[in-house]
């Protein structure tokens, strides 16, 4: 099994991921110790995953307050059911699955109706996506994220993805789960993860490029420009 990540995103987040991976052995130890009564260690166990759990619930409920409540509930549920964690999946995947379920539960409560089928996009599986075309694309430096309207545009574009695409995009590209882990957490086939991820990325490209292009300065002028 190989873990594939977006090349450049890996660079940005390698340190964080590295920390999580080196925790591998201690994580199993922590879990055993919590289970025999050192419950305070649960704080330490979940600390690396606070963001992931919040983002996962948020990808389902799309509301900050609801996502925070849901994240708390998911963590409490993980604590209560810790003894049932078998260690055949990674702890992080197990936690994400709990978070997805918590999000879905909240959504059902709020909508009192079927959730996903409503948002199922109408394109067939062979549907084609035409990206936004451009020839003079320049990289938007990450300093640009200091600008509120750019962050807002990115958030809005992700929020407006159809539910099933946004959930896959969040787990794969924001939280860096691999295809198998994403499939397991969402209860879908790995093939569906790939198709949905491709579409999510293409939709974001199409949606955001005109915006980013309009905000990109001419070559060489970026750093001299007042932001």
């Amino acid at each position, binding site marked *: 099994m190989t873990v594939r990540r977006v090349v450049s995103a890996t660079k940005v987040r390698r340190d964080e991921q590295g920390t999580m991976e080196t925790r591998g052995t201690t994580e199993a130890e922590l879990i055993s110790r919590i289970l025999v009564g050192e419950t305070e260690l649960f704080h330490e166990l979940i600390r690396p995953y606070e963001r992931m759990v919040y983002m996962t619930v948020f990808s389902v409920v799309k509301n900050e307050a609801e996502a925070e409540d849901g994240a708390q509930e998911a963590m409490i549920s993980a604590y209560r059911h810790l003894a049932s964690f078998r260690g055949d999946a990674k702890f992080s995947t197990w936690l994400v699955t709990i978070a997805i379920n918590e999000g879905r539960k909240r959504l059902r409560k709020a909508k009192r109706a079927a959730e996903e089928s409503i948002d199922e996009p109408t394109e067939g599986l062979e549907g084609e*996506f035409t990206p936004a075309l451009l*020839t003079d694309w320049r990289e938007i430096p990450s300093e*640009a994220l200091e600008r509120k309207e750019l962050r807002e545009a990115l958030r809005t574009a992700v929020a407006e993805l159809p539910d099933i695409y946004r959930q896959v995009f969040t787990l794969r590209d924001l939280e860096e789960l691999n295809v198998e882990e994403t499939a397991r957490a969402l209860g879908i086939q790995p093939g569906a993860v790939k198709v949905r991820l491709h579409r999510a990325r293409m939709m974001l490209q199409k949606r955001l490029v005109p915006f980013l292009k309009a905000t990109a300065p001419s070559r060489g002028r970026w750093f001299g420009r007042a932001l």
Partner: protein
Amino acid sequence: MKLECKHVWEHISEYIDQTVDAKLREEIEKHLEHCEICSAVLDSTRNILVLTADGRTFELPVGYSERLHERLEEELKKKK
């Protein structure tokens, strides 16, 4: 066989994830060498992924972590 732009777009996501097979990868790379449009589509997609994954784009609510641990503490105490 010469690859059309449309064909490259269909595989952009897999290309980014490095899951296309070696032969297709080579064809895509050959295409990218001379096609400015596809190169720009690829770069812009990658760039958007980096920007959306940046922690500043989706910020956690202020005080989220503190409230989470407080809530957990209540739960942990209950069990003792």
